[in-house]
């Protein structure tokens, strides 16, 4: 049962190691290997999620050492839901990349490394192990961005690498402080030690600050978001759909995991200023991301800036540190990941079919790509937060929790950003459907497969399903969001 956990990381690594060897003999072996691996991985993740839902949290200590010394892997409802997200998004992105590219063996090796790193992030309970997985997924992400074929791909990837590595290094510094304060790297042992040490020590506060800034870089909160728009613009569309859905989202999960399992709610109780600062940072990100998104002409950059705003919303939910706020943050992270993945895939289809890249060039394209446009419009409304798509429910829980705990600024910021997002997504949908473009007929374009369109449609349907089942999802998550984790 719990022996499944290490396989979630090992399953992608084995084919990753064999791909370079297979590549000697076969030209296009990457996609089939990745597809088989992703299917196996999804099965393992589903099995894990099922076990957690039926029997409760499960854990495994690598090497049979005591958890305090060894590397502990564990899955509760929270880990399992992000694990499933990684698997499923990984699977449907493959439907896109089969025709939409990238198709080289190298790109699928990187894809598998990303899958392994992100799965590890979801299940590890060792803070240093978490750093290693952060860097594995980070390295894969930087290299995946560089697969873009424009001349801006390498500069964008390098900028992502430099900023992302500083973020991961700051996280490393933060856990160094924690290790000095507690003498252990295991999350639950750390939480127990912190009770004895006290949550108001300078080491602990500094550790929280470094960890937050470090993971904030990976989440791309304002003002450390600068890597994101360039990276998502320059990456191949299928890769953008993968990265936009998973990399920052799992960093957000890691932040929440540390908040729940290491620092616990006591941290904000003892240091009210920390909670207030985190809320302020989140609100700043919510506002700045939305304002910057309104100003973009390039559709992918607009989506990237919208992510800056949406991650601010999720972190604001975490910073409220109420069960409802946390649940809202998790639902928002999951929902945003599904919808952003679909939106990037849809934009990729439009780019491949028509060459349109800016909001203005999207004018009147609904007649050229009707199904994709429908999915894109639905996902846009979902990202704005219109029910019954999942985008509404995360925001709803966060605003409700903010109002109940008297954090009016958070509630106001989330509502204001919703209005702003209506203006920029509304503009996109309006261009698509209500305006006619004067596009020169270009025969160079037109390579769109059913799989590429299906990626966007499936994401829209999953967003709808998550929205309809959001109450049940919150019910499942509730035990893993209260107090210290298993």
């Amino acid at each position, binding site marked *: 049962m719990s022996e499944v956990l290490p396989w979630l990381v090992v399953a992608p690594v084995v084919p990753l190691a064999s791909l370079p060897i297979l590549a000697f003999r076969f030209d296009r072996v990457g996609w089939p290997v990745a597809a088989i691996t992703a299917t196996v991985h999804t099965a393992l993740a589903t099995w894990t999620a099922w076990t957690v839902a039926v029997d409760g949290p499960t854990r495994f200590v690598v090497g049979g050492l005591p958890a305090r010394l060894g590397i502990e892997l564990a899955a509760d409802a929270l880990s399992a839901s992000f694990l499933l997200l990684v698997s499923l998004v990984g699977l449907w992105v493959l439907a896109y990349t089969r025709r939409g590219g990238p198709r080289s063996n190298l790109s699928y090796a990187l894809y598998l490394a990303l899958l392994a790193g992100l799965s590890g992030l979801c299940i590890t309970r060792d803070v240093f192990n978490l750093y290693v997985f952060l*860097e594995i997924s980070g*390295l894969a992400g*930087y290299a995946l961005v560089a697969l873009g074929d424009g001349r801006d791909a390498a*500069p964008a990837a*390098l900028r992502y*690498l*430099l900023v992302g590595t*500083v973020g991961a*290094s700051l996280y490393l510094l933060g856990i*160094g402080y924690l290790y000095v304060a507690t003498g252990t790297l295991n999350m639950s042992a750390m939480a127990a030690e912190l009770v004895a040490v006290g949550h108001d020590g300078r080491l602990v506060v500094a550790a929280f600050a470094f960890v937050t800034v470090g993971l904030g870089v990976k989440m791309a909160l304002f003002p450390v978001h600068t890597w994101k728009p360039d990276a998502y613009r320059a990456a191949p569309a299928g890769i953008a759909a993968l990265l936009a859905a998973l990399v920052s989202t799992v960093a957000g999960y890691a932040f929440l995991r540390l908040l729940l399992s290491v620092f616990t709610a006591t941290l904000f109780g003892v240091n009210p200023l920390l909670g207030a600062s985190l809320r302020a940072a989140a609100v700043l990100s919510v506002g700045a991301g939305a304002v910057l998104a309104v100003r973009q002409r390039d559709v992918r950059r607009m989506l990237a800036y919208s992510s800056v705003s949406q991650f601010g919303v999720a972190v604001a939910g975490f910073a409220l540190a109420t069960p409802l706020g946390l649940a809202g943050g998790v639902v928002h992270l999951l929902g945003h990941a599904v919808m952003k993945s679909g939106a990037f895939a849809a934009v990729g289809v439009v780019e491949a079919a028509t060459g349109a890249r800016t909001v203005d060039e999207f004018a009147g394209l609904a007649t050229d790509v009707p199904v994709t446009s429908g999915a894109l419009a639905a996902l846009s409304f979902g990202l704005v937060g219109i029910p019954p798509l999942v985008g509404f429910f995360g925001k709803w829980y966060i605003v409700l929790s903010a109002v109940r705990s008297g954090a009016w600024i958070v509630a106001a910021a989330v509502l204001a950003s919703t209005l702003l997002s209506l203006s920029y997504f509304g503009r996109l949908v309006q261009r698509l459907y209500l305006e006619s473009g004067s596009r020169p007929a270009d025969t160079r374009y037109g390579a769109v497969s059913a799989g590429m369109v299906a990626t966007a449609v499936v994401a829209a349907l999953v967003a709808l399903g998550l929205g309809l089942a959001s109450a049940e999802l919150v019910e499942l998550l509730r035990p893993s969001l209260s107090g210290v984790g298993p």
Partner: protein
Amino acid sequence: MTALLASRAAFLVAVVLLGLGLFVLIDDPNLLKKILGLNVFQTGIFLVYVAAAVRAGGRSPLVVEGGGPYVNPLPHVLILTAIVVGVSVTALAAALVARIHAERATVRADELRDGAGEVRDRE
């Protein structure tokens, strides 16, 4: 005060390395120097860990009967791992700079700005 500073010398050096590295990373337009800045910055963090493992009178942890006290080996092991990660990052960064040089004939960040064919945004 001087005695306190002397006993914390390693941490002071670490702070200087962190500041220096970050400054070069942000300020220098040369992409290679940015990577060097990143390396210096990471070295500062490595030093924090290694300095935290020191024990007064401690020796290498080759445990023998009645041998102690030993320095803490765990931070050393962690930093070995972090160095490996750092090497991988540097290798990838250097490869990217090589590609930028091949495609754009420059390794300066300020000369990459005027991208032809890129969609200009109102920023």
